[in-house]
C-alpha cells in the first residue's frame, strides 16, 4: 500500500510536509512502517481542495487534509480498511461522497500525458520514474534509432511547442540538426513568466526526470552534448528537485559520459533567471544565460543558427519536453490520434480565477471551453454568471460566452483573437471589470518591457495612460480609436514577441466588451464595481436597521448614524474600501 501526499507548492503551503510526517509517525506507532510507504509527490492538479492525500492501490482521494487527520487515516483506512468519509470529495451536484478520483468531475475529461507522473511517483526517486517506463525512450533512441529516425518520429507525432508559439517541434529539431558546428546546445525554457501560470513548475516539481530524459534525447537527435535548463530563481522547490534528479541520473549512467554504453555523452546544467518576463523570449533568454541583460535581438539569426555562445541552440519549453519520452515509447501514431487536425496531443492549463475547481488540468486539444469551465472547473464560484476566460496571459485575449463551444486548439484560439500561450486560463465572472483587466495586463507589460525599442517602451505606456484615464471616468470616445490605432502600430513595429502581442488584451476586450468601455466613458459607470473612481457607496435608508456594524468597521470613520437609526456614508471621506458592504448583514449598502 502506498500513501501519496501532494508535495506541490499549493499543498506544501498548507502544511502537506507535516501531514506526511504525521502519517509516517502514526504508521510507526502501529508497526506498519515497513509495509506502507508514504510518498511525497508532485501536484495532483486539484489544488483547490488541497492538501491531497491519495491511497493506492484503491485510488481513494482525500481532500483538504490537515496534519491532525493523519492518525485517523492510518487507524481507519490503513488498519481497519474503512474510508474516512468526512475527508472524501463531495460532488457539488448530488452531494454524494466520491472516493475514487476517476469518478470526480474534475478528472473525468482530463487526459494526462505531460503530467502522467505528477502525483503518481516520488519525484526524488529515480527508481520510481524508471518503474513508470522512465528512460525507456532514451534507451530506445540510443539503442535502436538513428538521430534522423528520432527527429522523424517527433515530426510525425505533430507535436507543437507548448511555450506559446506553437512551432512544430520536429521541424525545429531538424533545422538544428542540419546546422553543423563543433558544439551545439539544447536549452530548456523554464522561465515561465505568465503571471498566473504554473504548469512548467508543476512538471519540474512532480516529474523532473521526464525533462532530463527528453533533453538528452534532443541532444542525441541534433548532435548536442550540453543541455542547459534556464529556470526562474523564484522556483526553489523545482530547482531543488532538478538538482537531485540530475545527480541521480549521473549515478545511474543516464547522464554524463557514454550514456548506457552507447558512446553518446550528454550533460545538463542549470542557469537561474532573475525575474524578467522578457527573458522567456528565446533570444533574450540566451543573452541572459550569457550573463548579460536579457534583451531580445532581431531574428534571424535564429537560435538554431546562432544561439548560446554563438552556437546552434535548440530551445524548447518544459511541457514540450515532457511529451517527448512518451511519444518515443508509444509511437507517433498513438500521439497524433489525440487532438485536432493541426493541434495534436494535450495541453496543460492552469485553471484559475472565479471558478470552483482551481488547479492544474491537462485536456486533449479540441475540448470545448464549456467542458473545461463547467465540467472540469465545476462552474463559476458562488453560482455567478460566466463572463470571460483569458488565455495566453499578457499576450493573449479573452474568450466569451460565444466561444464556449469552440474546440480549443492553437488555430481556433488565434482566430478568436486570443492565443494558446503557455497555458494560463483565468476565468472571470460579473465581478471582473474588463477595462480593469486590460489595464492590469498592460501594467505588467509596461513594467516588463525591456525598453529596447520605442513602440513597445513608449506605446504601451500611452495605452496604459489612456486606460487609466478611462477607469478614472475621464475617457472620451476618441480614446477608444486611439487605443485601437496605437495598439495596431505597437503590434506591427515592435522588435520581439512581447511588444508584438502586448496590445492583445486591450484589443480583445474592446472587441468583445465594447459596451463596457462605452459605459465607463459615457455613463461614468463600472458595472462590475471595480473601478473605484466610478463608484459611490450608499446606504439604503429603508433597508438599514442601524446595527452599526458598518460604522464600526469603516477604517476612516466615514459612516455616521445613531444606533437603531439609518446610517449615512460621507462620500468625501469614503475611500471605497468595501469593508462596510461586507459587514452589513441586511444588504443595505450598495455601490452605484
Amino acid at each position, binding site marked *: 500500500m502506498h500513501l501519496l501526499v501532494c508535495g506541490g*507548492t499549493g499543498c506544501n503551503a498548507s502544511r502537506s510536509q507535516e501531514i506526511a510526517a504525521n502519517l509516517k509517525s502514526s504508521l510507526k506507532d502501529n508497526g506498519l512502517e515497513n509495509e506502507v510507504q508514504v510518498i511525497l509527490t508532485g501536484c495532483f492538479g486539484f489544488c483547490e481542495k488541497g492538501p491531497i492525500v491519495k491511497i493506492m492501490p484503491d485510488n481513494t482521494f482525500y481532500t483538504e487534509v490537515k496534519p491532525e487527520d493523519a492518525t485517523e487515516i492510518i487507524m481507519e483506512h490503513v488498519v481497519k480498511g474503512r474510508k474516512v468519509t468526512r475527508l472524501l470529495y463531495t460532488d457539488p451536484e448530488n452531494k454524494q461522497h466520491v472516493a475514487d478520483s476517476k469518478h470526480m468531475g474534475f478528472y473525468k475529461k482530463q487526459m494526462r500525458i505531460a503530467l502522467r507522473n505528477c502525483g503518481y511517483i516520488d519525484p526524488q526517486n529515480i527508481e520510481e520514474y524508471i518503474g513508470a517506463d522512465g528512460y525507456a525512450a532514451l534507451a530506445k533512441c540510443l539503442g535502436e534509432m538513428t538521430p534522423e529516425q528520432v527527429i522523424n518520429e517527433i515530426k510525425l507525432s505533430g507535436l507543437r511547442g507548448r511555450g506559446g508559439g506553437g512551432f512544430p517541434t520536429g521541424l525545429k529539431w531538424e533545422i538544428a540538426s542540419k546546422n553543423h558546428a563543433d558544439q551545439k546546445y539544447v536549452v530548456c525554457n523554464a522561465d515561465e513568466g505568465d503571471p498566473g501560470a504554473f504548469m512548467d513548475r508543476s512538471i519540474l516539481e512532480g516529474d523532473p526526470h521526464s525533462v532530463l530524459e527528453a533533453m538528452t534525447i534532443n541532444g542525441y537527435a541534433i548532435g548536442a552534448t550540453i543541455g542547459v535548463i534556464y529556470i526562474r530563481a523564484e522556483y526553489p522547490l523545482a530547482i531543488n528537485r532538478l538538482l537531485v534528479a540530475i545527480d541521480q541520473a549521473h549515478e545511474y549512467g543516464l547522464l554524463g559520459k557514454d550514456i548506457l554504453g552507447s558512446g553518446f555523452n550528454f550533460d545538463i546544467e542549470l542557469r537561474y533567471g532573475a525575474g524578467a518576463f522578457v527573458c522567456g523570449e528565446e533570444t533574450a533568454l540566451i543573452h541572459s544565460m550569457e*550573463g548579460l*541583460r536579457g534583451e531580445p535581438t532581431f531574428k534571424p539569426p535564429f537560435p538554431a543558427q546562432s544561439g548560446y555562445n554563438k552556437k546552434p541552440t535548440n530551445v524548447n519549453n518544459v511541457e514540450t519536453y515532457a511529451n517527448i519520452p512518451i511519444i518515443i515509447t508509444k509511437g507517433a501514431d498513438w500521439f497524433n490520434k489525440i487532438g485536432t487536425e493541426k493541434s495534436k496531443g494535450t495541453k496543460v492549463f492552469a485553471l484559475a480565477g472565479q471558478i470552483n475547481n*482551481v488547479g492544474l488540468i491537462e485536456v486533449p486539444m479540441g475540448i470545448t471551453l464549456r467542458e473545461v469551465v463547467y465540467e472540469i472547473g465545476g462552474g463559476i464560484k458562488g453560482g455567478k454568471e460566466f463572463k470571460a476566460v483569458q488565455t495566453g496571459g499578457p499576450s493573449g485575449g479573452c474568450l466569451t460566452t460565444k466561444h464556449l463551444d469552440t474546440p480549443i486548439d492553437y488555430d481556433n484560439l488565434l482566430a478568436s483573437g486570443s492565443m494558446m500561450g503557455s497555458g494560463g486560463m483565468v476565468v472571470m465572472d460579473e465581478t471582473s471589470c474588463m477595462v480593469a483587466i486590460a489595464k*492590469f495586463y498592460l501594467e505588467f507589460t509596461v513594467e516588463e518591457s*525591456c525598453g529596447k525599442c520605442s513602440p513597445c517602451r513608449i506605446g504601451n505606456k500611452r495605452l496604459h495612460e489612456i486606460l487609466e484615464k478611462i477607469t478614472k471616468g475621464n475617457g472620451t470616445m476618441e480614446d477608444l480609436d486611439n487605443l485601437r490605432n496605437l495598439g495596431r502600430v505597437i503590434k506591427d513595429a515592435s522588435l520581439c514577441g512581447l511588444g508584438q502581442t502586448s496590445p492583445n488584451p486591450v484589443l480583445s476586450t474592446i472587441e468583445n466588451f465594447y459596451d463596457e468601455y462605452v459605459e465607463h466613458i459615457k455613463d461614468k459607470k463600472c458595472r462590475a464595481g471595480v473601478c473605484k473612481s466610478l463608484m459611490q457607496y450608499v446606504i439604503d435608508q429603508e433597508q438599514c436597521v442601524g446595527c452599526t456594524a458598518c460604522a464600526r468597521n469603516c477604517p476612516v470613520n466615514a459612516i455616521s448614524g445613531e444606533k437603531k437609526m439609518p446610517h449615512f456614508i460621507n462620500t468625501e471621506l469614503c475611500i471605497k*474600501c468595501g469593508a462596510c458592504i*461586507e459587514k452589513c448583514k441586511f444588504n443595505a449598502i450598495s455601490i452605484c
Partner: protein
Amino acid sequence: MAKVKLAESKINKIKEICTSFGNKPGEAINVLHKVQGEFGYLPAEVQEVIAQELNVSVAQIYGIVTFYSFFTMTPKGEFPISVCMGTACYVRGAEKVLDEFKRELKIGVGETTPDGKFSLNCLRCVGACGLAPVVLIGEKVYGRLTPDGVKDILNEYRS
C-alpha cells in the same frame, strides 16, 4: 559611484564568491544571486567590488542589477511581505489585500517600515493559485487571505 566602505571581511566574501565562479564575466548573474543571498541586497559598493573582480565596468553590473527585478539595491525588512499580484490572485481580490497592508503598515510598495521590521513588495504567481489570494511573509505562504485577516497576520510578527 559611492566610495568603497565595506568591511574587509565582506569584501573577502565577495571575492571568494567571484573566484568560485572563475571570475568569469559570463557568470555575473550567478555571482549576483550568490552575493545577494549572502547580504540580502546589492548596494553600490558591493557592485563595485564585483565589477573589479570580474573585470568589467561597474556600469555593466549596475545594468544587470537594475534589469532584473529579483535583484534589489535596498535592504528588505526583517519580515519581507510579498503580495502575489499574479492574474489568479488579482481576480480574487489581491489588490484589496495589498491596500490593507499599505494602510496597516503605512508604507507603499517597495518601502520598508521605519523600524526596519516589515517591507512590502509585489510578486507574480508563486504557484499556489489554488489558494489565491496569496501573500508570502519570508518563506511562509498565507493563502485565501481577506483584508480582514491582514491585521491578525501582522500581529503574529509584531510582538
